[in-house]
C-alpha cells in the first residue's frame, strides 16, 4: 500500500435550495469552520436550478458570509458562458478582499438553450466549446489579477503620484468569444490569485481543469478509479508546464449520514462502499455512519488515491453537523487532519504558494 504523499484536505458544499436568507448559510459556514475544513462551496447556475425553483447568487451569499467567519475558504460557483470575464474577475477579486484572502471560484458553464434565452445574445453551444471558452475566461481572469503588481500603490507625496503606472499592465487578451484590454479595476487580491476550482466530474472538463484549476473534484466510486483519474489530470497538468503538486485533487462524495451507527451494538461500516450517482454528473453517494465515513476517507487517503474529499451533505444542516463531529473528529484524533488553521488564507490551507504577478516577473526579467 502506498504512503499518502501529503496532508488531507476536506471541503464541504453548503447548498440549500429554497434558502433565501443569510443566517442559514452563516450557520453552516461556521460549522464547517469549527471542523477546520479547507473551504466551503456553494453551487450556482446562470438560470434557475430547475423549473419552479430559485436560488441566490452564490458569490453574493459567500460575500455575506465572509465577515461572519474568520478562516474558512469561500468557493462559490461562477458561470462563464453568459457573464462578462471582466466582471467575473472583479467580483472574485473583491470576494478575496472582503474575506482577507479566503476566496476561490468554481468555474462552470451554462449549456442549456433555456439559459441562452435569458440573455438572448447567442444560442446554446456544445459543452466542449463552452469549456474551451471557460478556459479562456480563467486565463484572462488570472491575467487581470496580475495586471496590478503588488506594490503598484505607492502614495508618493513627493511626486504627487498615488500609483506607479509602470506597475499596471494591459492584458490585451484576444479569445475566440471575447477580448479584454485591461488592466483590472480591482487591485491585485490578497492571495494574488484566488483559488480556481473545477468539478472535473466529466472528461469534457479535464483539459480546462488540468490547465487552469488549483483544485479539482473528480467522480469515482473506488480508490483505484480515483487514482487513475488523478494521474491522468496530473499528467495533463504537467503537459501544460505545471508542477503536479500545484493541483489538489479531491474526490466528490455525496454523504447521507442520517442513519448508520450511533445506535448501541451497531458496528461502524468500515470501508463502506460508495454507490454510483443516480443523477447524471452528480457525485457518488456514501450512505452510512460518520465513523464509517472516517474509515473510508482514511482508506482512500492511505491508498494515495486522492488528496482529500469534497463532500456534499444530502441534508446540509444535519449531515454537516455529523460530519464535523463524527467524521472529522476521529480523523483529527488519528493525526490525519489538522486541528487548527495554520494560516489565514485559502492558499495557506491548501499548501499552495502565492503566485507572483507574471507582469512583475516579466519586468524583472527584462532588466
Amino acid at each position: 500500500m502506498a504512503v499518502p504523499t501529503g496532508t488531507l484536505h476536506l471541503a464541504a458544499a453548503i447548498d440549500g435550495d429554497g434558502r433565501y436568507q443569510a443566517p442559514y448559510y452563516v450557520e453552516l459556514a461556521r460549522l464547517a469552520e469549527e471542523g477546520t475544513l479547507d473551504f466551503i462551496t456553494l453551487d450556482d447556475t446562470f438560470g434557475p436550478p430547475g423549473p419552479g425553483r430559485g436560488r441566490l447568487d452564490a458569490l453574493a451569499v459567500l460575500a455575506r458570509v465572509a465577515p461572519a467567519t474568520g478562516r474558512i475558504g469561500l468557493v462559490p460557483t461562477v458561470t462563464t458562458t453568459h457573464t462578462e470575464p471582466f466582471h467575473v474577475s472583479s467580483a472574485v477579486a473583491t470576494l478575496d478582499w472582503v474575506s482577507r484572502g479566503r476566496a476561490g471560484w468554481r468555474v462552470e458553464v451554462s449549456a442549456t438553450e433555456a439559459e441562452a434565452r435569458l440573455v438572448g445574445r447567442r444560442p446554446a453551444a456544445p459543452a466542449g466549446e463552452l469549456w474551451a471558452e471557460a478556459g479562456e475566461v480563467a486565463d484572462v481572469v488570472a491575467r487581470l489579477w496580475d495586471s496590478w503588481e503588488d506594490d503598484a500603490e505607492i502614495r508618493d507625496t513627493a511626486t504627487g503620484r498615488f500609483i506607479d503606472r509602470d506597475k499596471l499592465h494591459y492584458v490585451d487578451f484576444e479569445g475566440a468569444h471575447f477580448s479584454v484590454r485591461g488592466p483590472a479595476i480591482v487591485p491585485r487580491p490578497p492571495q494574488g490569485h484566488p483559488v480556481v476550482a473545477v468539478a472535473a466530474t466529466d472528461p469534457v472538463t479535464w483539459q480546462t481543469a488540468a490547465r487552469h484549476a488549483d483544485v479539482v473534484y473528480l467522480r469515482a466510486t473506488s480508490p483505484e478509479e480515483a487514482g487513475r483519474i488523478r494521474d491522468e489530470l496530473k499528467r495533463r497538468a504537467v503537459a501544460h508546464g505545471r508542477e503536479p503538486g500545484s493541483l489538489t485533487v479531491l474526490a466528490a462524495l455525496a454523504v447521507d449520514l442520517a442513519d448508520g451507527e450511533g445506535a448501541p451494538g451497531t458496528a461502524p461500516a468500515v470501508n463502506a462502499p460508495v454507490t454510483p450517482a443516480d443523477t447524471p454528473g452528480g457525485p457518488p453517494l456514501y450512505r452510512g455512519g460518520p465513523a464509517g465515513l472516517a474509515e473510508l476517507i482514511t482508506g482512500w487517503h492511505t491508498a494515495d488515491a486522492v488528496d482529500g474529499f469534497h463532500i456534499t451533505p444530502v441534508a446540509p444542516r444535519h449531515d454537516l453537523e455529523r460530519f464535523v463531529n463524527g467524521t472529522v473528529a476521529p480523523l483529527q484524533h488519528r493525526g490525519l487532519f489538522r486541528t487548527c488553521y495554520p494560516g489565514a488564507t485559502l492558499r495557506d490551507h491548501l499548501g499552495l504558494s502565492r503566485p507572483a504577478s507574471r507582469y512583475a516577473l516579466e519586468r524583472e526579467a527584462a532588466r
Partner: protein
Amino acid sequence: MSRQHKQIHLAAHFPGVNNTTVWTDPRSRSQIDFDSFEHLARTAERGLFDFFFLAEGLRLREHNGRIHDLDVVGRPESITVLNALAAVTERLGLAATVNATFNEPYELARRLASLDHLSGGRAAWNVVTSSDAFTGENFRRGGFLDRADRYTRAAEFVATARELWDSWTPDGTPRPFAHTGRHFTIDGEFGVPRSPQGHPVVIQAGDSDEGREFAASAADIIFTRHGSLEAGRTFYADVKRRLARYGRAPEELKIMPGVTLVLGDTAADAQEKAAEIRLQQVSPQTALLTLEQIWGVDLSGYDPDGPLPDIDPDPDSQLTQGRVRHGDPLAVAAKWRALSEEKGLSIRQTVIEANGRQSFIGTPEAVAAQMAEFVATDAADGFILVPHLTPGGLDDFVGRVVPLLQERGVFRTAYTGTTLRDHLGLPYPGERG
C-alpha cells in the same frame, strides 16, 4: 407640539477615484481594504443614514495615452462589497452603481435581488450608462452606444429588470416571463424569488434633460449636483413637475445632491480648513491635468502658479479617456479665462475656484442650519455626503451635526423601519396582474 418638519434624507458616498479624496493626508487609509468600507458604513449607520453609496469603475482613466496616476486608483466591485457590508450593518441601505451598458438585465436583476434578500431589503441600484468605446474594450460587445441609445437601453433595462422582479408570486411561485424590445428579447424563468423590497430602490444620476425624464419615469432617487440654493430649487421644481406625466406623486422621487462639507469650531476656522483641503485636492500637477482635460492639449510647459494659457482648446481632442468632458471646451475655457482675469487667479487658483462643488462649510450649527434650509425650501430632499477622507471623513459630521439636525426635528432619532424603502418613505411596488 409643533408641526412635523420635512425630514432630511442622508446618504454616505465612499470616496471614489477622483481628486476629491485627499490621499496625502496622514489620516487617509486604504480605499480597498474591507476595514475602510466597514468603518464608513458603521459610521453612517450610527448616524441613522438612509444608505451607503458606492460608485463603479470599468476602465482605469487615461490621460495622454497613459494611466492617470495622481488620484486614488482602484476599487473593489460594488455589489460584492455591499453583500459583505450587509453582515456588519443592520438597517443601512446599500446602493451600488452598476452600468446598464455593459451588463445584461437577467444577470444584474438576479444579483440585485440577491443583495436585497441577503440584506433584508436594503438594496439600491444607481443606474448609469456609458457611451464610451474606451470602456467597451473590456467587454464582450466591445462597442458602445450613442447618447440617445444609452437612455433607451437604460430605460428598457430597468423596465425589464422590473418584469423579472415581478415574475414571482408572493407565495413563491415563478411565472414565466417574456420580454421583447428593441434592446432585449429574452424569455424564461427568473431564478430569484420576490425580494423583501419587491424592487430594489432605483437611483439615477445626472442632470441632463434625458436624465431628468428617465428619473421621473423610473427612478426612486435622483443623485444630482447643483451649486446653489436657487439652482437647486429650479431643478427640484422641474423634476417634481415631470412626475405627474407618469402618474407619480412628488414624494415618490427623492432629490439628493452630492455635497462635500467642512466643519470647524468657528466660521473662520472652517473656511481656513476648506482652503487647505482645496489646495490638497488640487495639487500643481492636478491643476495642470485638469486644464489639459479641458484644453485637450499638452500643457506641461505651463507654470501652475502662472496665468492661463493663451492658446485655444482643441474641441476634438482624445487626450483624456474614461472621463466625461463636460460642455463645450471653448466655452468652458472662455469662462475660466474671464474668471482668472477678473480675480487675478493663477492656473491652480482658477481650477480651485471653478471646480468647487456644492459644499457646506462652517460650524456644526451653521452646517445644520444650511442643510435644513435647503430641504425646507425645496432645493433638495436630502444629501449624499462625499467625504474627502477615507474612511473617517464622516466621523465629525455624525458626531456633531446629526444631533443638531435631530434637535431641529428635521432628522430621525431612530430607524422606524427595516428596509431602505421604509427609510425613504417610498411605496412598495405592487404586483403585476
